[in-house]
């Protein structure tokens, strides 16, 4: 028995040594982490796919983490901690709570990791080594400006339904909403939250959770408040699709109601083509992700950090209004071009 125990013990010791070797002997795959807000929003699903693709091309080993819902800060904190402990060289993060995550990410930087903010800038923006962002405020603003231009003089009597994300008002929801109102020409009062506006043209602020079912129920409630709604702002395309179903049920799917949305995924652009959505602001999550992975590789190999877009504190991956019904004074791209550049 003693001989067997000795044999087993030594086998274990050898196995253990081998197991811990790769970290030192150098398998040389650069490790990085991608932390998104959720794993169910198609936007982040695509971001993950883009990151994965680029990472495979560059030989970077990517680990994925996501919160359960937009606003789930706790899961992201644990993800950062796990990442630091695993020996990764960099973190790509679309933060749910852009203020609270900062000290946690500082800790990562102190441990030699490069911190890249994706999609949503941190507060302060300089807390990240680099930011590959989309300007959600601009995305909303383009939609609002387009609607106002389309309505012309009637904008003064418009009746607007605001279909937002959820009651806890995550930053993406606030930026797009307030951007839309600014583009339309309505006073946002406090630009850091929605729902506090006093303009009588805003009929309702209802929440959708960013999905079709929520969009439908929210729009039904808004129509009950005022059946004359002729403008709908939506947080994203699934919510817009749901709102359209409500319009259809109310017999208002005749083109008299303008729907503006954000995201620019291929299904969304197809909905613009179909006339369900009037115009959508297209963002580029795949581009953000691949640029982020490239940045981490450069950091790991040369210690270089990425450069910002001129005049900006972040690298703007751009936002374009996609519509085939262009309005004067509001730059947009055609649906065809939108389909070429869409994600999903």
């Amino acid at each position, binding site marked *: 028995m003693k001989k067997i125990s000795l044999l087993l013990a030594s086998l274990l010791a050898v196995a253990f040594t081998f197991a811990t070797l790769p970290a030192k002997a150098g398998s040389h795959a650069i490790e990085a982490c991608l932390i998104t807000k959720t794993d169910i929003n*198609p936007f982040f699903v695509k971001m993950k796919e883009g990151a994965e693709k680029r990472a495979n091309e560059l030989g970077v080993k990517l680990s994925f983490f996501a919160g359960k819902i937009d606003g789930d800060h706790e899961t992201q904190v644990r993800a950062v901690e796990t990442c630091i402990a695993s020996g990764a060289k960099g973190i790509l993060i679309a933060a749910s709570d852009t203020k609270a995550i900062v000290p946690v990410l500082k800790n990562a930087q102190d441990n030699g990791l490069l911190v890249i903010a994706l999609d949503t800038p941190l507060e302060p923006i300089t807390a990240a080594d680099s930011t590959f962002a989309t300007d959600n405020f601009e995305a909303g603003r383009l939609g609002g400006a387009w609607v106002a231009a389309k309505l012309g003089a009637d904008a003064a009597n418009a009746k607007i339904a605001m279909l937002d994300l959820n009651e806890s008002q995550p930053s993406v929801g606030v930026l797009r909403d307030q951007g839309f109102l600014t583009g339309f020409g309505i006073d946002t009062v406090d630009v850091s939250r929605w729902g506090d506006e006093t303009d009588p043209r805003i009929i309702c602020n209802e929440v959708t959770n960013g999905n079709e079912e929520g969009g439908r129920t929210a729009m039904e409630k808004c129509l009950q408040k005022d059946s004359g709604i002729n403008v709908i702002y939506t947080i994203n395309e699934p919510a817009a699709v749901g709102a359209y179903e409500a319009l259809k049920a109310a017999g208002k799917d005749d083109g008299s109601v303008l729907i503006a949305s954000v995201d620019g995924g291929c*299904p969304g652009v197809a909905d613009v083509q179909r006339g369900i959505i009037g115009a959508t602001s297209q963002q580029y999550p795949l581009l953000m992700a691949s640029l982020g992975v490239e940045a981490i590789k450069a950091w790991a190999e040369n210690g270089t950090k990425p450069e910002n877009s001129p005049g900006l504190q972040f690298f703007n991956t751009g936002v374009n209004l996609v519509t085939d019904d262009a309005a004067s004074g509001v730059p947009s791209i055609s649906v065809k071009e939108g389909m070429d550049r869409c994600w999903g």
Partner: protein
Amino acid sequence: MNKISDDISKDLQDQPKFSEDIGSKNQDHHSFDVGEQTFIKKIQHFLHGNPTMVPIIILILSVISFGFIAGGKFFSAFNLSLIVQQVTIVGILAAAQTLIILTAGIDLSVAAMMVLASVFMGKLSVEMGVPTLPAILVGMIVGVATGAINGLLVTRLRLPPFIVTLGTWNIFFALVIFFTGSQSIRSSDIEINAPLLHFWGERINLGGFVFTYGAFLMIFMFVVLWLVLNKTAWGRHVYAIGDDKEAAELSGIRTDRMLVSVYAVAGLVIGIGAWVSIGRVGSVSPTSFYEGNLDSITAVVIGGTSLFGGRGTILGALFGALIVGVFSSGLSIAGLDVLWQRFALGCLIIIAVGIDQWIRKVSN
């Protein structure tokens, strides 16, 4: 001699007639000493005997109140029937949830099961060219199967249903994301390839009230389940198991088998709900009904069914769902910030459970 017999027969006549008097005067020695009943106590007694009246009364009161607060926009035939449309899916989930809660269990995965079933229905018929009716059947089988999985895990592994369904919720949900990449199957594609999936979303106008076929189906399912629970042995066994599992076992009920069947039946209800949900939402949406699990439990609790099992009626869940819909609609039309809808929901839950506890305490 005659006088004696007369006396005897007179005495016999005067003796209280045992069988008559039991029926007339002496009932009180086998009832509770209720003392003098105040009005409140009378209400408490009444509700104790008819617990479904609690959500019915709350529903009627809230409809009337919002009629005053929010006016004609709330109290119209169109809006009231719209509310029924809006709660149809959660109502069906709540029916399934009631079955499980009656057995002193709970199912945190009902909405994930429903979305998974709807994904099967949609993917098979729209993207893979399977004829619609078989695809729908497959979806319902998925509902039954996922329900049976929950039931088997609860009975075989002897784990609390809360834990099991917490796990399966995540598992089913992850499968949904895996199969769909979070992308919906759009309404227009369904209309072209498998329009039958939209059937329960068709609407019918009855003098200003606009109902979907799905709303009628929901009510029909509640009636059927009520009959099953109250008029069949299976239904009585469900209550028995929830009330006292050991006693049920000892009285000859095969509790493990029954439990699996309850979860499977709930799964069938959910599978039907999946079909109805496609009509409601229009598309097959993997991210929709994310809060459906908790919404179904909310409806059941507000409807007066005890989470401890063995007590409560299935119709309570229907009224519970309607109450939630009424508050959501009423507060919205009244112009209150959307967070008050959530606040009101929380208050409703606590009030409902509080009332349920109060009417249980009937005897001093």
